[in-house]
């Protein structure tokens, strides 16, 4: 009647333990469903690959030293470069790191180690942070324009951009740092406290060192989001023509995403090629940062 293969008794152990309980004949609907699922995932990957290849091919003619040695030039696209934007991006990234990392990490320590979750204000901080993470980035531009630039009187300068971007990526830093702190086992905490260390000594000498890899990974990802952001900076004066590198906190500036946006809007073909070349540089920086983050995560993260 039925051969052993029909009944589905495995002659040798297979990869998937469950498969021998199932029917030996594949069901077409099941196959179709799995195919559709996989295709959905693959579409995203194909899109990513197309985008990367397209940008490289289109920008290739201008991916040379002119891009980082020259300043922007409206009249002569063959001499235009993005040096001011590259330096501006580095400045903005460093300033943003200086502002948002201490604030974010300290806030995370408060929320994980000190905050009493039964108190309404601590719950409010948590809820508020979740909401801030989903506020459109252009609204942060409005905040930067209305409060930082006008009320604080910092104007549309590089420090205004850094403060605004710091607030924008703060939820990312806090969430990543909290996860890293939470992953440190309670036994380390208890051991340190039992030896007579105070709470802050425990945090500084035991918990933070153990959580550093996770915090670093999250921080790099947050900064990579900050340097790719263009929308809020549109409102903060980054679009003006800049042909010099920033030299102080209050100097005028431009950054790579804004320079790219500016070139995309020009009608001449040369500027489109320049935009593609600058995108390639920006994506290279971002991919490098992502790789460093993943490397840190895999290399230093302890499994408890």
């Amino acid at each position, binding site marked *: 009647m039925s051969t052993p293969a029909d009944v589905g008794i495995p002659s040798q152990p297979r990869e998937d333990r469950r498969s021998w309980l199932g029917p030996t004949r594949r069901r077409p609907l099941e196959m179709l469903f799995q195919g559709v699922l996989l295709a959905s995932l693959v579409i995203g990957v194909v899109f990513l690959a197309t985008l990367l290849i397209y940008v490289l091919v289109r920008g290739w003619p201008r991916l040379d030293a002119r891009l980082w040695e020259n300043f922007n030039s409206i009249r002569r696209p063959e001499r235009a470069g993005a040096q001011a934007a590259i330096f501006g991006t580095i400045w903005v990234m460093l300033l943003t790191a200086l502002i948002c990392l201490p604030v974010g990490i300290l806030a995370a320590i408060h929320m994980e180690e000190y905050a009493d979750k039964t108190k309404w204000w601590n719950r409010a901080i948590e809820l508020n942070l979740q909401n801030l993470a989903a506020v459109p980035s252009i609204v942060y531009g409005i905040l930067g324009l209305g409060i930082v630039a006008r009320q604080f009187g910092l104007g549309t300068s590089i420090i205004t951009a850094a403060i605004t971007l710091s*607030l924008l990526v703060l939820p990312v830093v806090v969430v990543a740092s909290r996860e890293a702190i939470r992953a440190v086992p309670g036994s380390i905490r208890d051991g340190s406290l039992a030896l007579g260390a105070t709470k802050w000594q425990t945090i500084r000498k035991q918990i933070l060192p153990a959580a550093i890899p996770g915090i670093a990974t999250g921080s790099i990802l947050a900064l990579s989001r900050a340097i790719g952001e263009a929308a809020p900076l549109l409102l903060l004066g980054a679009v003006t023509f800049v042909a010099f590198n920033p030299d102080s906190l209050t100097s005028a500036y431009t950054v790579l995403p804004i320079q790219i946006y500016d070139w995309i809007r020009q009608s001449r073909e040369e500027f489109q090629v320049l935009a593609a070349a600058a995108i390639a540089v920006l994506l290279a920086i971002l991919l490098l940062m992502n790789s460093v983050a993943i490397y840190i995560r895999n290399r230093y993260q302890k499994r408890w």
Partner: protein
Amino acid sequence: MTVTAEKASTASGAPRGSLRRSRPRYGELVVRGILLTAALVSILTTVGIVYSLIPPTVAFFQQVSFDEFFTGTSWAPLFKPASYGVLPLLVGTLVITVIAVLVAIPLGLFAAIYLSEYARPRVRKTFKPMLEILAGIPTVVYGFFALALVTPLLRGIWPVGDGPAIFNGLAAGLVMGVMIIPTVASLAEDAMSAVPQSLRDGAYALGSTRMIVSLRVVVPAALSGIVAAFVLGVSRAIGETMIVTIAAGITPSVNWNPLQAMSTMTAFIAQAGSGDIPVASFDYKTVFAVAALLFAITFVMNAMSIRLVRKYREVYE
């Protein structure tokens, strides 16, 4: 002494009692204060957003009636005579959001089901970083891609009529949809991973196939989380600025045809705000009024999404 002991045992619940130090450590208190201040920065951010939005918005509505703003069909604040009907911007936002959501919701959900229910660990390890990279690409790059490649492609393959204009809502919406896939997929996958294995095992024991388990057990059990993912995806589509500004144009009109140029709330803010507008001018107030509307809409959606996520966390965790 007895008072402190009592207080300690009632306040913290831990049986510390008289072991607690009677003299406070001031250093520790200072640290606590600094940490709390850092945590309060996030509250101040929200307060700052609301504070920067309200005065210009109030001033705006002193000159333009609610009626004109919400029912007027012409948006031309920078022309003379100016008109302030926000409907064209809302229609543009709606059309592009719907296109983006039609792409992102099915693809994001299916990708999440695959990653959570089908993929072997090694497959997950290859695909998840790719989704992370897709999520990390700057939106200005997506905008360039929509304008420089997707629009010409659509114009080339369009079978009937004139096809999409140089600036059109369709290309912007499609590319925005791909941009949102990682958001939807990762939140939905989180929700599905939180479904207890025992529910799946029960269904398998009754003879269900993997497809049935995914669609009839896991998806319904994770539904609130999946809906939260959808809502957050919609909220991101409404708030997205650069793709729209670059690829959809800045032409506000009550226009439901995605093949033509259209403008959104975000595109107007970006366009009008990127010039150097004087604080006293009415244009400044107009930008803030539209921003207030955008903030209100996304705020409601985010609050819904947070509430839904909380619901499944309460059930399974």
